């Protein structure tokens, strides 16, 4: 069982990490913009995108993404982690992207990255929706505080007030949000993995469930649980770096 988990887990970690990165890199600025431009079109746009991204079934979104971006437009590679031509060329040791980079195989790296973009984007939609909405609400609360008004009165540039002072204060809760979002993606990746023929832990647990392989299901679930605990611990440790009060 450990050998199986060691084989499937890196694929899920790669997918969830890419999705979370997308969610954070796009979701945080989107949330900030929505808060700054409250009740204007950027705010409406982010809220609508958040509403659409969250409830739409990932199964449907994945298939539609494949039809549009893979079949019709040809912008991304199709299902699977790697093109068939590269199958079995690289001995897996860690993650596929890392293996290819360490081996200096940039053609394989590029192909694997092209396969990762669509499933990570689809999965990242959920992370993006969640993170942008929470960032917006954190920022709205923060922008009402007196220290923000004082900073503006003192003539601090608006971008510095928003991106440095207000967002800086929001970073602590946002770290927890991002960590929990990462954990959720690990467990919710199973549908994305099914649609994209992604050989990850989510699909492995699902197929074990259908085969009534209780040990495998328990093993996979324990791994996801441990990752949740680890992420929680990691975000607590990050508090000390981000929040001066936590260091005292």
């Amino acid at each position, binding site marked *: 069982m450990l050998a*199986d988990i060691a*084989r499937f887990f890196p694929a899920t970690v790669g997918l969830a990490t890419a999705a979370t990165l997308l969610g954070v890199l796009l979701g945080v600025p989107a949330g900030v913009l929505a808060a700054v431009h409250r009740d204007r079109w950027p705010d409406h746009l982010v809220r609508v995108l958040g509403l659409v991204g969250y409830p739409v079934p990932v199964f449907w979104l994945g*298939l539609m993404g*494949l*039809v549009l971006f*893979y*079949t019709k437009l040809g912008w991304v*590679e*199709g*299902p*699977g982690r790697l*093109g*068939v*031509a*590269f*199958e*079995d*060329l*690289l001995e897996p040791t860690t993650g596929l992207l890392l293996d290819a980079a360490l*081996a200096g*195989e940039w*053609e394989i790296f590029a*192909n694997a990255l092209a396969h990762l973009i669509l499933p990570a984007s689809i999965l990242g939609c959920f992370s993006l929706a969640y993170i942008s909405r929470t960032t917006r609400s954190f920022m709205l609360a923060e922008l009402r505080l007196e220290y923000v008004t004082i900073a503006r009165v003192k003539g601090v540039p608006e971008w510095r007030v928003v991106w440095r002072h207000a967002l800086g204060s929001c970073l602590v809760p946002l770290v927890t949000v991002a960590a929990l979002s990462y954990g959720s993606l690990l467990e919710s990746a199973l549908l994305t993995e*099914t*649609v*994209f*023929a992604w*050989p990850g832990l989510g*699909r*492995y647990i699902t*197929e074990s*469930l*259908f*085969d*009534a392989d209780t040990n495998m299901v328990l093993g996979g679930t324990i791994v996801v649980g441990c990752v949740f605990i680890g992420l929680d611990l990691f975000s607590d440790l990050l508090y000390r770096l981000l929040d001066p009060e936590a260091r005292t």
Partner: protein
Amino acid sequence: MNKSPGFILTQLGLDKDKVEKLVKALDPKTLQIAITDDFGSSFVLSTLSANIASIVETNVVLQHEKDGDLGNGWLETNYAGSRAFVLRSWKPNESDVLEANLTFWRGAPSIKRVVIRHVPEPATQRLLLEKGDVDMARNLSADQIAGLAGNKDTVVESSPKAEVYYDGLNQKHERLRNPKVRQALRWLVDYQGTTESFLEGRFKVHQAFWPSGFAGSSTETPFRLDVAKAKALLAEASYPNGFEVSLDASNFYPSIDVAQSVQATMAQSGIEVNIVPGEQKQVITKYRVRNHPMVFLYRSADYLDPHSNADTFTRNPDNSDKAKSRPLAWRNGREIPQFTEKTDAAARERDPAKRLQMYLELQKIVQENSPFVIVFQVQDQPARRANVKGFVTGPFADQIFYLLVQKRGSRDRGLAQPGSPILAGPDPGIRAVACDAPRASDPRHPRAHFLRAARGRLRDRPGGTDRPRPRDRG
């Protein structure tokens, strides 16, 4: 010989203690197999055609022997033979890679490599096929097959499989023991409606235990959905208002869909069917100890002879709870000494024509009065790109032949394979091997050739290796 599929050979009198005496290599091209019972030659030859035993390179497998397993564990994921393709890698639930055996005795295959991808979602398989990133999709659903109609780049093949679906009626339940009730249930299945809608193409109506397309099969389909006739039979059986009964069905396609259809049609006669869905292993475990009232399952033949199914549908030498042999007739509690004798006699009959006639009679008996309502036969529908030809599937899940596959152009793609438990592992045929297998260290061996190519690409990255770039798509 002491593993479970070994029964196909042990029924001929072979076992692990006698095999060395009964099976002898007379010369490099002649194998003599002695049998200890008086079976007909057609039966014996059919059992030997089963893909359960292979000749392996003794020295190679014995090098990997562990705890006296004769290398059996190693062979699960490795190769030691000389068939048309060599198993290059096997990653469960991910992919298999086969490479051409350039020293194959019938000549090297025209394709150098077969990559089998595990693609659980049929819609994704279809997208891959239409895009041209795979050459074949093995398990498209009926709606996906219909969606390919009109696509000139793809072709859908169709071939019957030696697999039938049936309702099993446990004779330990009083109501289901009534012959009139069993007869009524045969008229309460919408055979045509289901095979013309959600099962279209993948299943066809078949009502005998031996699948059509094979010698000795009965193709008669006397039953259709007839609620009025079923109601009359139920009235004769003293159940004019029907009754309540449970139906076990696995969550494996298409069992639940068919169970729901049966539930709807039986409700028209007053029979209230409670579907008990379960994971396939659970359903079969319950079935094996006769704890089901009704069950919807399939029977896949073990070898291409009607005795393979007769042996389980019409033979039950001991109906007691402690019986050692537990065929389907036992699982449904059917005590049938007369048919057991008839089945044994058919296996021993030496006249092939008379023998097939005996099986036709047995099929008629099961069709008319037995605890089996046989409903469908499976049809394999592999879809392929139009430029790929020569792919052959046999009637069994482990009979898949890539030897004759030809592909126009030099593209190197894969074969999408679904998450069906039957096909998820490597093709057992791939591991079927012969004694003159070249070693992996032999420079003529295809594995050595591809290893060199792969290493060259990875380390030196020279141009013009055997492996095409992913954008080389015709």
